[in-house]
């Protein structure tokens, strides 16, 4: 009898709990999706005046956006900028994080402080410093793509560092590295055959985060990337050119959606890559997962 009652209660409790969950989930979904839907509708709208929905629909803005050579070049600049940033950060961070874990724990403090700088200082300040510095050291690079890549690599590297360092902790990379050494592997063989395959979730996550940070970055691009056209720079110009020809805001909406699509596809790749694994951004978190195996 008691069991029966208990079961009934728990079923009722479950129903309430599930309803609450669904309600919360629905609210979150609306909160996140409504702006996207609005932007989407706007990008197809002929005019959108006094109604909940646009007055009419057209493909004109999308066609114009896709055909616009300036937008094309902004996208290609931004994508190469973000890709290079992510690749440079991975190439710098993986050996550094590996070395700090395996050989020289002291450089860890340096790396950790360096990783906090982009968050402690506004990007504008960093960008201005970089501009001053390059003005003294290499003035010919000012306003060029390589300098902007260097700047983005500097501000986006903490994302890669945290993701990679967390992945190394989770994989007990020190232990694996020692083992590989005892097996006769050279440092390069260890990194290539043991370290990288075992931290791939962290690499993909870190790479995506730094890609996204660079892709959406505006302040630094504006200061040291003058003369370049990135997607955020183009978007800002569109917003400012208040009285521009009709449809410029609609094209802006289309560009926003394209940006979203790029990042969404990349995120989907990350989720797919990491399926079944929890990605940890905190160093040290999950370091025991290896030992759980029986």
């Amino acid at each position: 009898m008691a069991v029966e009652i208990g079961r009934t209660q728990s079923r009722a409790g479950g129903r309430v709990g599930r309803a609450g969950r669904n309600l919360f989930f629905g609210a979150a979904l609306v909160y996140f999706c409504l702006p996207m839907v609005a932007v989407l509708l706007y990008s197809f709208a002929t005019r959108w005046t006094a109604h909940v929905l646009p007055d009419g629909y057209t493909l004109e803005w999308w066609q114009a956006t896709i055909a616009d050579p300036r937008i094309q070049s902004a996208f290609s600049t931004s994508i190469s900028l973000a890709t290079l940033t992510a690749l440079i950060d991975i190439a710098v961070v993986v050996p550094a994080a590996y070395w700090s874990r395996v050989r020289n724990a002291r450089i860890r403090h340096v790396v950790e402080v360096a990783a906090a700088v982009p968050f402690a200082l506004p990007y504008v300040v960093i960008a201005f410093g970089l501009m001053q510095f390059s003005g003294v050291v290499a003035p010919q690079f000012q306003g060029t793509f390589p300098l902007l890549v260097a700047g983005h690599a500097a501000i986006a590297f903490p994302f890669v560092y945290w993701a990679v360092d967390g992945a190394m902790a989770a994989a007990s990379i020190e232990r694996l590295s020692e083992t590989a050494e005892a097996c006769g592997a050279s440092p390069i063989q260890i990194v290539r055959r043991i370290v990288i395959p075992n931290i791939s979730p962290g690499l993909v996550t870190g790479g995506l985060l730094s890609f996204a940070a660079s892709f959406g970055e505006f302040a630094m691009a504006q200061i040291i990337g003058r003369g370049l056209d990135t997607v955020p720079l183009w978007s800002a110009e569109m917003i400012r050119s208040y009285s521009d020809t009709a449809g410029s805001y609609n094209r802006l909406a289309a560009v926003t959606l394209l940006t979203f699509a790029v990042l969404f596809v990349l995120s989907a790749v990350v989720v797919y890559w990491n399926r079944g694994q929890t990605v940890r951004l905190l160093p040290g978190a999950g370091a025991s997962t290896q030992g759980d195996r029986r």
Partner: protein
Amino acid sequence: MSGVTLVGVTKMYGQVKALDHVSIDVQSGELLALLGPSGCGKTTLLRCVAGLERPDRGTVEIGSSDVTEAPTRSRPIGMVFQSYALFPNLTVRQNIAFPLEVRHKPRKEIKSRVGELLELVHLTEQADRYPKQISGGQAQRCALGRALAPNPEVLLLDEPLSALDALVRGRLRDEIRRIQQLVGITAIYVTHDQSEAMAIADRVAVMNAGRVEQIASPADLYEMPTTQFSAKFVGSRNAVELAVRDGRVGIPGSFQIDAPAGSNGHALAFFRPEDVQVSRGDAGSGMDARVEMKIFLGATTRLHLIGEADGQPIEIFGDLPSRQARLIEQGEMVRVDVDPDHVQAFPT
């Protein structure tokens, strides 16, 4: 095959001497166990042989070559860790092939050697599984196969059984010994478990606080510990503090032996429970004692015996064949005797 020679190996961690002038000669083909409590330096010593630690002083030789300064990867060693440390991204087969691949051995040779090793460690059926998909015992056998793959001169084992449950532990211990003898490889085996060390080793080096206390065969170590530490650490022993009189020490009515050099007033006498003889009533010789407790252990029964020496109560454990102990009742008065040949005394 070749042995390992350690001469005056010293390693400091800040102010702490992890290793204090350790000199050990490991014979070719021998399995030497490094036995000691945690923090005694046994793992540090093994890591010095592997090159994962650099000694501050002293030399490490493998065979006839000095490897003190050589990096780990160029030493002729194979290593097995407590935590298995299999590469999770590689299958059992690939794990075993790894040391051969990094040495750029021909593909054909790798294939046949890996096949051999899979057979040796009985993992042929699990060859294409990933480390996550095999048991702890299988993982450690895979690690053993991987360590042996490049035909190293020395096999280093760092508490290889500690992470396993008791049943698997005993079986794998014998398996490691079988393979070590079959291959005829020199091996150094770190453990804190004295019965494991006794069961597997040709010789046991007892370590304490960064020093080697005693190196002896398991039988000699068990019979004749030469220091107080090894007497305490190896085997379960009675440890009785006794007064020294006229250069002699003993239990009145039972044994008397020469007091150890350097003892003043008191000495600590060690003897094993199975060397304690118990006789009922007034029949035998020895100290009068009362049976405080009787614990049935299977083949033997352990008696807790309370006697008196020099006006002080002393507690002695005696192991008797269970059939004989059946006759003895708890609370009964008995005579307790100890064979003086099996008593070691050390200054307190």
